[in-house]
């Protein structure tokens, strides 16, 4: 990426909705997926609406590819139609009176394409997303995943520069979310604009996004590369959010993967779903011992205590060594094991506690 690259999105969203004063700065570069995460009521959807032009700014600005589309100080507010911003709403908002084909064709026709031309293009999009046979289905006949794909195809068909995804997987159960994430990655493979993904699921952010912005009470409390935010969560919410350890791995055999960077070998209980995976485990699942543990844990290694931080309920212990993870232990364990920076310690993760997701 060259230093002169113009970001697709350069926004400072300032507005008040009800009791919530939002003031958030966001930036997304071409080809980048930015995760916007935060607790309920933090203003995530408000930020999306302001970027899309569905809500006006009180102060700040929105620039798309360097062009100002909103700047209240200069009296600029381009309507949604004039912004190349695609939105996939949380409730999808497919037009109930139109079938899947006409839903996707709608934007193309709105942008001047003939009806026949728009429908042909819409069918190509549906085929690409594996929905070629569902073109005649009305929204109420589509499954959740299908409706999601139609909504994404509809947004992408008009070739936006910025794609806003509001909680795309919230309607799916845990089992299906992993598949949906993989499907989304494939569907976005050809998209060269920027993506802002609103989610409350840390795994979405960890698997899909290069960067994370954490929004709390309308303000950005932390922003950075995903791995950075995972390693050093700055707020209680961020720590909870990324209470999940994230390791990038490569398959060795069905149940073993090598950790990127260190080559440490980790064993997982379920067969690996792909060659390149993200391994996750909860911080509470990382057990610490003074001596090498004997018995069941499959993944045991000698580590060095990095940082120790926390409160009277729980303490997060950052481990340096072959498997860079964070363990969450009780204050009593900290005292018992003498956990202070630089101290040696044995760490273990049960194979069943490690989950692998395709990258």
């Amino acid at each position, binding site marked *: 990426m060259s230093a002169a690259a113009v970001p697709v999105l350069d926004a400072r969203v300032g507005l008040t909705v009800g009791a919530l004063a939002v003031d958030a700065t966001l930036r997304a570069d071409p080809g980048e997926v930015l995760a916007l995460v935060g607790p309920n009521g933090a203003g995530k959807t408000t930020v999306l609406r302001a970027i899309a032009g*569905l809500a006006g700014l009180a102060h700040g600005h929105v620039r798309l590819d360097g062009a100002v589309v909103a700047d209240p100080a200069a009296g600029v507010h381009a309507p949604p*139609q004039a912004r190349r911003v695609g939105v996939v*709403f949380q409730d999808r*908002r497919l*037009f109930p009176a139109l079938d899947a084909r006409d839903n996707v064709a709608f934007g193309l026709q709105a*942008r001047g394409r003939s009806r026949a031309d728009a429908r042909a293009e819409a069918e190509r999009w549906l085929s690409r997303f594996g929905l070629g046979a569902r073109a005649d289905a009305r929204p109420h006949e589509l499954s959740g995943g299908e409706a999601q794909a139609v909504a994404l195809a509809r947004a992408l068909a008009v070739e936006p520069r910025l794609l806003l995804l509001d909680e795309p997987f919230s309607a799916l159960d845990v089992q299906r979310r992993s598949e949906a994430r993989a499907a989304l990655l494939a569907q976005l493979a050809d998209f060269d604009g920027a993506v802002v993904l609103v989610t409350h699921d840390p795994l979405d952010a960890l698997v899909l996004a290069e960067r994370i912005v954490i929004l709390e009470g309308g303000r950005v409390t932390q922003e950075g590369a995903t791995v950075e935010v995972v390693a050093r969560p700055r707020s209680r919410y961020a720590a909870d959010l990324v209470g999940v350890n994230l390791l990038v791995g490569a398959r060795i055999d069905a149940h073993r993967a090598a950790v990127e960077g260190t080559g440490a070998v980790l064993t997982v209980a379920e067969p690996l779903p792909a060659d390149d995976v993200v391994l996750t485990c909860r911080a509470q699942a990382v057990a610490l011992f003074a001596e090498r543990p004997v018995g069941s844990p499959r993944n045991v290694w000698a580590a060095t205590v990095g940082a120790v931080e926390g409160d009277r309920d729980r303490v997060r212990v950052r481990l340096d060594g072959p498997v860079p993870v964070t363990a969450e232990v009780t204050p009593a364990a900290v005292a018992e094991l003498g956990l202070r920076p630089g101290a040696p310690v044995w760490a273990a993760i049960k194979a069943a506690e490690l989950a692998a997701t395709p990258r």
Partner: protein
Amino acid sequence: MSRPSRARAGSHAPLPLWALAVVGVCFLALPLVALLQRAPWRGLGDHLREPVVTEALRLSLVTATGATVLCLLVGVPLAWVLARSSLPGLPLLRALVTLPMVLPPVVGGAALLYALGRRGLVGGPLHDATGLLLPYSAWGVVVANAFVALPFVVLSVEAGLRTVGTDHEEAAATLGADGWLVLRRVTLPAVVPSVATGAVLAWARALGEFGASVTFAGNLEGRTRTMPLAIYLELQSGRETAIVLSLVLVAVSLLVLVPLRDRWLPG
């Protein structure tokens, strides 16, 4: 289908409640029964072919339909303004729209005369310029009927617009659709049921209009004498035709209920 649980719950209602409910049913049914009892069933076919019946029926159907078209033409946009815009005087505007529902129709007819009559506020200059005269013409009936029927279209469509909300309109806007396209392909298709309901109600209201019509458009046979006026006139002269005309209106009203049965006649 019977609903056993509901029937059982109903049977526990106190007796006086039942008694008064029965009185209510009788109050509604008795006049209809009396009408049917007095109907000249034997000569019904001949009566129906009488010019006074066919002429009044034709005029009523034409003017009620014309009034409904007029109501849709201005009522749907008015409903959109009430539901979607943020004008400062909206509560006042909504009161104005509702007014014909509570205003005595004869007052509405008189007011229309002062507005659109030969020497009316707008009617005077209009007549001088074009020679057009609304009172005592079939167009006058249409205008009077539309005046009393308009609230039904506006209120029904406004409620429909509020129910469907703006979610899909927003989605359409992000896809690049301008206001007109959003209205045509997203908003209007969503409120078709409300528009249909409003139209049926307005048509039924226009069909039965008496006061505003007779005040503004008079009672000229073949030009402004609609069914209600003909019924009143025939009743004054004590003829059976009044009952036949009434039966025709009852039949038409029942037919109107058919398209609304999903909403008002469940099961």
